[in-house]
């Protein structure tokens, strides 16, 4: 058949017209749109009865009340509990995304023992019986050799029944080496002990204060109980209360304050003392709260002349006198201590300076002032009847030397542990138990921490998640997540009231995990009478119920127990360590011309729990971009170093080196660079791992000679174009 042009065109046009008139294209288009939207894996969440259950969020020290919305047995949303004394319906982004932790793929789903090399991630699932046998046998072996003191334990918090159970386990077992992660509690205990000469914690009556002077405290960046702080901030706005933020970087707290005072990092104590000196010399000071006032006042006024202070701090003389005027003439002024989230410990000189300033306002333990609050005292268990082996172990000195010399009154100095392990002194650590803490990411100089853990032959992690520390463990005994269990949550966090929240099992345990309290009681029972005797409870729930006593009913009913009428721990302050040497940043100026300071943000969780996928989503693209993390730098400093926005650079400090990108930010002091804390995870999953740099890899601990605690606030650094 001959196909000429005419018949070809007829065929094509006819075919096209025919197809168009047929249902075929429309059917195909319809099908394709259905096909493109009806993937079989598109989840269709089952509907069902909706119920709300109240609980408490223990993910940070804040202790907010939460309400969990459930559809049948699934938890679908966490909301702030309306009417709760701390957050009254408000909630932060970590609390909101708790279900991503509960149902997340990084949960450890069953007890496991390591089969491959350390850190290789090869595990074998075992039963709880096997896991507890393994633990009790290993610990029994060490104890039988009379080396009980060579076992150490790290707890994420210092409060609560579970922490006390772990501490009790260590006591009955015979080791003095119980550690807790550095927190505001350390600062509080250490300040109360050194400055007030009593036991307890600090409380800030912020809602009633009428002048707020914050020495770098991240009022809006996660300091104290974050939601309480956000609410207080709104209250200040409504009442036009001046908020002064002293900080080298324009953080969110500084940005929302009435005034941002840019200061040379590490000189906050000098400014506080400079203001104190002005209050005294201008007769605005109230000396009633200070013991030995006469003895040091002239010295202070002499040593902290405005000109000298201006020189040290970089804050102009006029600003200093303006601050003194504001603080001195306000009725209920308050000064805040604790940089960023306030979990770093800081120097005794700095906390003493801020406390003295508060004392000079004459507002100690008064409305709108700083309070010395007694510790909550509801865990009254009988003393442990220790046997001979335990006594011998407990008689050994702590490996970190806490409680001796300058550290008197301090329970533990976790930042000293890695160094002590590495130098084998005074004795080697043979086993380490880690609960609710992630030292391989949280502690400064993480490289040394990992090396130290490498030297410990037996590590047990009770973590619920595959975090960096669990990766280094030999035995995983995963705890329930807070939404699966009962637990008390004691809230300190700078409140001027006592609040104990209650975590409740909102959903049943999702995996083969076990409450840490149960694990401890059961393991103790497997280890013979000497240890079992210290744990008379049938299970954790009965222990909790018995311990809380008459508070239990109100906690079950309201979800919390509250006491607004707190006991004051002390009435007077004793100025201590004001002339102590200033804690300097590590490194010399010539090789490292810049100063690196870590900064906290509420959008990045920097504690034991890492950022959830939702939280990572809120982090800006000038903090992390792809795998790269950023450092903030003043455009002036950047130009001097030949750096432009987004440049890849090598950041070096005396402790480590990392590759970073540069973000130009006008709101940072020239010569200072800042990096967000809490990034650079290596464990967890792709939603969190390999994003940015862990600033702890670049900063080492710097001990404050007057307390023994880590007081590093930054480190010298150098930034070169890569």
């Amino acid at each position, binding site marked *: 058949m001959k196909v000429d042009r005419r018949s070809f065109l007829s065929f094509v046009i006819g075919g096209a017209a025919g197809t168009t008139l047929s249902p075929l294209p429309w059917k195909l288009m319809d099908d394709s749109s259905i096909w*493109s*939207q009806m*993937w079989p*894996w*598109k*989840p*269709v*969440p089952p509907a069902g009865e909706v119920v709300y259950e109240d609980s408490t969020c223990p993910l940070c020290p804040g202790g907010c009340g939460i309400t969990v*919305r459930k*559809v049948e047995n*699934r*938890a*679908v*949303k966490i*909301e*702030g509990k309306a009417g709760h004394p701390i*957050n009254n319906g*408000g*909630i*932060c*982004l970590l609390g*909101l*995304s708790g*279900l991503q932790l*509960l*149902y*997340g*793929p990084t949960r450890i789903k069953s007890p496991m023992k390591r089969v491959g090399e350390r850190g290789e991630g090869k595990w074998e699932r075992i039963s709880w019986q096997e896991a507890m046998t393994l633990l009790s046998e290993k610990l029994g072996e060490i104890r039988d050799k009379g080396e009980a003191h060579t076992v150490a334990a790290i707890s994420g918090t210092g409060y609560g029944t579970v922490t006390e159970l772990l501490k009790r386990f260590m006591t009955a077992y015979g080791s003095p080496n119980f550690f807790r992660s550095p927190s505001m509690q350390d600062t509080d205990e250490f300040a109360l002990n050194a400055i007030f000469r009593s036991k307890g914690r600090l409380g800030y009556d912020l809602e009633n204060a009428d002048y707020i002077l914050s020495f770098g405290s991240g009022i*809006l960046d996660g300091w104290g109980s*974050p*939601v309480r702080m*956000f*609410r207080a*901030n*709104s209250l200040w706005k409504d009442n036009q209360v001046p908020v002064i933020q002293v900080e080298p970087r*324009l953080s*969110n707290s500084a*940005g*929302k304050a009435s005034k*941002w005072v840019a200061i040379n990092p590490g000189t906050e104590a000098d400014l506080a003392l400079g203001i104190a000196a002005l209050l005294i010399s201008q007769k605005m000071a109230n000396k009633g709260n200070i013991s030995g006032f006469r003895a040091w006042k002239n010295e202070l006024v002499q040593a902290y002349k405005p000109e000298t202070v201006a020189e040290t701090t970089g804050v102009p003389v006029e600003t200093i006198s303006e601050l003194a005027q504001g603080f001195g003439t306000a009725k209920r002024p308050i000064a805040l201590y604790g940089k960023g989230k306030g979990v770093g410990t800081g120097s005794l000189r700095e906390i003493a300076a801020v406390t003295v300033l508060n004392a000079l306002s004459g507002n100690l333990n008064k409305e709108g002032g700083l309070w010395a609050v007694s510790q909550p005292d509801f865990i009254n268990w009988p003393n442990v009847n220790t046997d001979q082996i335990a006594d011998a172990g407990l008689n050994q000195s702590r490996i970190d030397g806490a409680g001796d010399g300058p550290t008197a009154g301090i329970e533990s100095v976790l930042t000293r542990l890695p160094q002590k392990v590495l130098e084998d002194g005074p004795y080697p650590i043979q086993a380490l138990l880690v609960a609710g803490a992630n030292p391989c990411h949280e502690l400064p100089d993480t490289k040394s921490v990992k090396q130290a853990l490498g030297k410990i032959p037996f590590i047990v992690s009770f973590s619920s998640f595959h975090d960096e520390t669990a990766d280094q463990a030999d035995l995983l005994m995963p705890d329930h997540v807070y939404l699966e269990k009962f637990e008390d949550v004691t809230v300190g966090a700078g409140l001027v009231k006592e609040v104990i929240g209650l975590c409740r099992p909102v959903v049943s345990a*999702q995996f083969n995990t076990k409450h840490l309290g149960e694990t401890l009681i059961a393991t103790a029972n497997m280890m013979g009478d000497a240890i079992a005797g210290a744990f008379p409870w049938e299970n954790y729930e009965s222990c909790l119920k018995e311990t809380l006593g008459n508070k239990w009913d109100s906690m079950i009913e309201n979800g919390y127990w509250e006491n607004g009428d707190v006991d004051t721990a002390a009435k007077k302050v004793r100025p201590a360590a004001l002339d102590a040497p200033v804690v300097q940043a590590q490194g010399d100026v010539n090789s490292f011309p810049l100063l690196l300071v870590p900064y906290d943000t*509420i*959008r990045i969780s920097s504690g034991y729990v890492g950022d959830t996928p*939702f*939280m*990572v*989503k*809120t*982090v800006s*693209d000038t903090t992390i971009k792809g795998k790269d993390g950023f450092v903030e730098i*003043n455009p*002036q400093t950047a130009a001097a170093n030949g750096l432009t926005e987004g440049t890849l650079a090598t950041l070096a400090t005396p402790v480590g080196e990392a590759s970073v990108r540069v973000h130009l930010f*006008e*709101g940072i*002091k*020239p010569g200072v660079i800042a990096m967000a804390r809490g990034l650079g995870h290596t464990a967890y*999953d*792709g*939603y969190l791992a390999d*994003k940015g740099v862990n600033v702890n890899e670049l900063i080492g601990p710097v001990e404050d000679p007057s307390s023994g605690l880590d007081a590093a606030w930054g480190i010298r650094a150098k930034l070169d174009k890569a």
Partner: protein
Amino acid sequence: MKEQQHEVPTKEAQHKAPVEGKEHGRPVMRYGMAIDLDKCTGCGACMVACMSENNVPFKEDESDKLKSITWIRVYKLTNGKPYPDTEICYLPRPCQHCEGHGGHSPCVSVCPATATDYSRETGIVSQIYTRCFGCRYCMAACPYHARYFNWYDPVWPDGMEKYLSPDVSARVRGVVEKCSFCYHRYQLAKNKAYLNGLHRVPEEDYQTACTQACPSGAIVFGDLNNPEHKVHQIVQPDPHNGNKSKNPKAFRLLERLGTNTKVYYLSDREWVRRLGDNYLAHEETGKVAKAHH
């Protein structure tokens, strides 16, 4: 039940479109927000509250913000001054639920599939995922970048789909999504109101997830037409001037486009208000408000 008094709708609207005092025999509502930027701390709780309320997906890398779906996004603004006079401010941006003139929102006008519509009952701009075929005209039309395209299928890591809410359907690759003012909450509140024999949804029964979560109390949500609602009292919309706020602290984003948005922002700071629109050097904020047509 006694009928309540309502603001008269805008003049233009009256003769241009059928937005009247009543719709299906019920008073017209205009749900909207007032966001106090002086109280907003940029904490991001609204973003996460929204994501967890509305089954918003997430990927391993969310640092490409053009592809990162956030129905409400918090922008960081600076006054552009050098150290140490630099100031920052945060601005949360949900869908602005433009009314335009008589319900002609920029996105609604261009949608060929009627996948997005302006509700004359509530003033909420809807998005019907199953109708959307992903042409993205609406995204181009939206002056606020409030619309997001699903470039990928949402994948919840194993087990995490357990927290998905049945109130909001999950979206798939190829459709556009955006803030709905938590419309499912309105539906629930409306059912509840009917059951309780109420003619109208009480203010406290219908609040968006972001409003509820905001720890600073910076977001106020309600019916802009209802003088009893807090949002009306703060905003004081002027129906004779394109619903412009009578509150000197308040402004809307790109107000002069005539999008007639229902999200109002409040700030004491002039430089913040100035960033809300494109002002010429000699123009003062608050003085020029007429739409250019």
